[in-house]
C-alpha cells in the first residue's frame, strides 16, 4: 500500500531538521522525516563539545544542544517523524522504499523530496596505510561514538592520522578521558581543521602536530595495534628515508576526510559532482531531478553546522515554493566554473528566475593564502572582485554576487582565487 506526502525529508540530522522546520514555516503542512538512527539529531548527538551555534544562535552550544533546539522547534509543528527507518531506494519520480521494524516495508510517494543523508568517514582502505591489520585502527568518528554515546574508551595511547576537525576534537576528548595522545600526523603542510580547534584541542594540551608527515607502517599482527612508524613526506607526499619516528601505541584514529553519502542519489540517477562527491545543485538547492532538493553534507562537506542550517533552510524554502507552484524549473542560465585555487563551488548552476537580490556561492581553495583576491568573471569580463584575508582549504568561503551583475554574464561564470601581496 502506498502512502502519500507533500514533502519527505530523507535524514533527521541538522540538515533535515532545519529543512523540515523551514518548509513548515513556509506553509507546507504534510511533511515526513525518515531517520535511520533511533533518534533525531544525526552526528550532532555524539559531538558533545561546544562551539556550535556561534553564527546562527549567537551563543555557544554543544552538538546535542544545537540539535535539541531544532528538535524542539520541530515538536511545535505537526511534522511527522519515523526514526529507526532505513530508506532503501528512491526513484526519480519520487517513490521512496523504506523499512523499519514497526511499519514493515514501506512504499511512499512524495510531491517533493529533500535529501539530507550526510556523509561518512574515509577509512584506512581508502588511503592504503601499509602494515598489519590489527584491531585498534578506527575512524575518529567511530571512536567518538563509542566514547560519547556508548561510554567506552577505545585506547589509552593514541596516534591520530589526519588533522580534520573530528581528529582534533578527539585528541582533546581522549586526553580528557585519560588517554595519552602521542601525536597528530598530517600529510599536508597545513591542517584541514579549523584554526580554533588547532589551538583549543592540540596547543592547549601540548599535543604535537606533525605537518607534512604520514604513517608508513602499523604493527600489531592480528591482535591489537602495538606500534606505528611515522615519516616526513616530500613535496610529492612520498615518505623521506631517514625521517622515521616510532610511537608505541595501542590505537590509531583516522581523520582523513569525509565523503558525502550519495548511494541513494546515484540509484535515483541524480547528477553528482566529481569534485565534491556531492550532488550537483541549482541556486535553490534543487538537484538534477525536478522537485528533489538536497542540503548539508550530502551536497558538500561543511566545517560549521551553522552553514548547514542556513543552506538547509534555503532548501526548505525552495521545496515550499516548488509545492506552491512558485518555482522556475528548467535549464540553468549560468554554469559556475572554477579556476585558479578554487576547487569547487556550490551551487554549480544558476537560474536567474529563482535568484532574488543576489546569489551566494560557497567554495573552497586548495592552498593556504594569508591574503587573496577572489574574482568572478564571465568570459574575459570581470564581474566582481572580493578581497579576503586568510583563506585555507579547511575553511569554507563564500561570495555573494548581486543579481544585476549575474545578468551581465553569458552562459558561464568562473570563480577564481589568487594570493594577493597586499590589501
Amino acid at each position, binding site marked *: 500500500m502506498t502512502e502519500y506526502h507533500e514533502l519527505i525529508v530523507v535524514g533527521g540530522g541538522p540538515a533535515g531538521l532545519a529543512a523540515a522546520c523551514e518548509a513548515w514555516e513556509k506553509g507546507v503542512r504534510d511533511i515526513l522525516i525518515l531517520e*535511520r538512527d533511533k533518534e533525531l539529531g544525526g552526528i550532532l548527538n555524539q559531538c558533545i563539545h561546544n562551539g556550535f551555534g556561534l553564527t546562527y544562535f549567537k551563543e555557544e552550544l554543544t552538538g546535542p544542544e544545537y540539535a535539541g533546539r531544532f528538535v524542539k522547534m520541530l515538536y511545535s509543528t505537526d511534522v511527522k517523524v519515523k526514526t*529507526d527507518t*532505513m530508506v*532503501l531506494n528512491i526513484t526519480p519520480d519520487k517513490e521512496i*522504499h523504506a*523499512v*523499519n*521494524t*514497526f*511499519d*514493515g*516495508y514501506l*512504499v511512499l510517494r512524495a510531491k517533493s523530496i529533500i535529501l539530507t543523508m550526510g556523509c*561518512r*568517514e574515509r*577509512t*584506512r*582502505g*581508502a588511503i*592504503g596505510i*601499509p*602494515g*598489519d*591489520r*590489527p*584491531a*585498534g585502527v*578506527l*575512524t575518529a*568518528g*567511530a571512536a567518538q*561514538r*563509542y*566514547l560519547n554515546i*556508548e*561510554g*567506552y*574508551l*577505545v*585506547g*589509552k595511547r593514541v596516534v591520530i592520522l589526519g588533522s580534520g576537525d573530528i581528529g582534533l576534537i578527539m585528541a582533546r576528548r581522549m586526553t580528557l*578521558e585519560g588517554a595519552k595522545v602521542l601525536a597528530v600526523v598530517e600529510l599536508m603542510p597545513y591542517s584541514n581543521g579549523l584554526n580554533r580547534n588547532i589551538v583549543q584541542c592540540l596547543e592547549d594540551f601540548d599535543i604535537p602536530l606533525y605537518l607534512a608527515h604520514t604513517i*608508513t607502517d602499523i604493527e600489531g*599482527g*592480528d*591482535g*591489537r595495534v602495538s606500534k606505528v612508524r611515522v615519516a616526513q613526506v616530500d613535496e610529492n607526499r612520498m*615518505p623521506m628515508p631517514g625521517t622515521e619516528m616510532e610511537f608505541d601505541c*595501542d590505537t590509531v584514529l583516522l581523520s582523513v576526510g569525509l565523503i558525502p553519502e550519495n*548511494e541513494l542519489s*546515484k540509484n535515483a540517477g541524480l547528477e553528482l559532482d566529481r569534485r565534491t562527491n556531492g550532488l550537483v545543485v541549482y541556486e535553490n538547492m534543487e538537484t538534477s531531478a525536478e522537485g528533489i532538493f538536497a542540503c548539508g553534507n550530502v551536497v558538500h562537506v561543511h566545517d560549521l553546522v551553522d552553514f548547514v542550517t542556513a543552506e538547509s533552510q534555503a532548501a526548505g524554502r525552495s521545496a515550499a515554493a516548488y509545492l506552491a507552484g512558485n518555482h522556475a524549473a528548467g535549464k540553468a542560465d549560468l554554469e559556475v566554473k572554477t579556476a585558479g585555487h578554487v576547487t569547487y563551488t556550490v551551487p554549480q548552476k544558476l537560474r536567474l528566475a529563482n535568484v532574488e537580490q543576489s546569489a551566494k556561492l560557497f567554495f573552497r581553495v586548495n592552498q593556504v593564502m594569508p591574503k587573496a583576491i577572489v574574482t568572478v568573471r564571465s568570459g574575459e569580463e570581470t564581474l566582481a572582485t572580493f578581497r579576503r584575508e586568510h583563506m585555507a582549504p579547511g575553511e569554507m568561503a563564500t561570495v555573494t554576487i548581486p543579481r544585476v551583475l549575474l545578468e551581465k554574464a553569458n552562459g558561464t561564470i568562473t570563480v577564481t582565487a589568487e594570493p594577493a601581496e597586499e590589501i
Partner: protein
Amino acid sequence: MVDVTVIGCGVIGAATAAMLAKYDLSVMVLEAQNDVATGTTKANSAIIHAGYDPEPETQMARLNVEGNRLCKEWAKQLDVPCKEIGSLVLAFDEADLAMINELYRRGVANGVPELKLLSAEELLAMEPKLSHEVKGALLAPSAAVISPWDFCLALAETAVKNGAQLKRSAPVTAIEKIEGGYRLHTPQGVVESRMVVNAAGVFADKVHDMIAPHAFTTHPSRGEYYLMDKSQGALVDHVVFQCPNKDGKGVLVSPTVHGNLIVGPNAEPVAEGDDVAVTADGLAFVRRQAAKSVPEINYRDSIRNFAGVRAVTDQPDFVIAEAEGAPGFIDLGGIKSPGLSSAPAIALQAVELLGKAGLTLKEKENYVFERRETRFKELSSDEKAKLVEKSPAYGRVICRCETITEGEIIAALHSPIPPVSVDGVKRRCNAGMGRCQGGFCGPRVQEIIARELGVPQTEVLQDKAGSRILLCKTKGEDAQ
C-alpha cells in the same frame, strides 16, 4: 577414540569434513583460530579457475577441472554466492600469444570446456575497458567467482549439522602414535583418533613433521590486494588475467561475487605463514601491473587492502598422500592456487585415501547436503514485506552500505558455528563489508554480539584472539 580428525578448518579441511560426515563415522575437526576460514581461505583472489594452467596429466590438472565443476554444483546446493563469469588471459606481445596458445592446448588436454582464443577486436568488443594494447586473449567461460569464506563456512556447517564435532582455538601442538591411531595434543585437551587428515594450510609441513619424517617445506608467498567500491565493480565483466609467470598467475582484475572489484596479487616470499601485512611497495606493484590490463581503475574508490599467504611448497604439485610411516595420516599440504577451485575434488580424494587406509565408508541414511540463507537485500519488495511482517528484526538495517539487517546478524549468531567476533559476523552475513568498512555498523554489530552471546561488550573481538576493540568503560563500576 574418534574415527577421523581433520586438522585445520579452511576450505580444504571443511570440504573433507563435510564429505566424511556423509558416512557412519565419528569426525572431529580441530581449528587453531577462533573461527573457521581465517587463513588462506579468507584472503585470496576468490576465483574458481577453469583448469588450463596446470600441465596435463598432473594431479593438479585433474583436481582443478573436476573441482571447478563440483564447486559450482556445491555452491548451488549450499546457497553460496558463486557466479560463472568466465576468465580471460590477455596477451600483449608475441611471447604472450604463444603462451595463450599453450594454455589453450593444456586446457583442451585437461578437459576444460568451451575454451576459445579471441582476437583483439573480439576481446575489446566484449571488454571495452581493457587496455587497447591487447593483442588477443584466451577465454574460459567455465571460470567463476565465489565467496571463499562462505563456501568454507557452508561446508563446515554441513559437517557440523551431520554430526561432526568442531573445536575452535584448538591448535595441534604435538602428535603421538598410539595403539590403533594417534593422540593429538591441543590447549583444549587431547583427542585420540584412528586416522588424521592434515589440512593445516601454510602450517601443514609443521604438522606433518610432528609425526613423520620431513617430506615437504612450505615457503609462504604473500599476495596483496585492493578491494574497490561497487562503483568500480562493473569495469570488467570477466576475471582478467595476464599471462602466468614464474611467481604464479600474475595480477588480476575481476568483479567479485558481491559486485566489488578485486585487484591483485603480487607474490612476495615471507618468513612466517601468518604475515599478512600489506606494504607500500607491494600495493604500488599491484597498481602498476593492473594498469597494463585495465588502465582506468580509480584507486580513490579503494575500500580495503588485504594480503593472504599462499601455501607454496618445494614441490610443483599439491601434496596429497599418506605420510611415510604413519598409516591413516593423510597430508593435504601445499594447497596453493588452484587450491580453492580444487577443494571439492581434493576432499573426495582424501576420503578415498582414508578408505584405502582401512576406514569403513558406510553411508548414513539421513545425510543433509543443503543450506538456505536469508539475504534481505536480494529479496523482492513483496518478499521483504512478508519477511519483516513475520520477523520484525529484518526491518532494522544495521549495515547501511550492504543493507544487512539485524535479523540476518541474529541468524548468523545462532548458526551452527556461531561467530565470536565482529569479523566473524561479517564473514557470515556481510555486515561491515561495504564502503564504510564497519565505521557506522561496527558498534551496533558489537552490541548485538554482546547481547546475543551474553558477554560484556568490551570482550567482543574484532577478529582473532587478542583483537579487542574497546579497552574499558569510561564510567560505572567497570571503568578503569
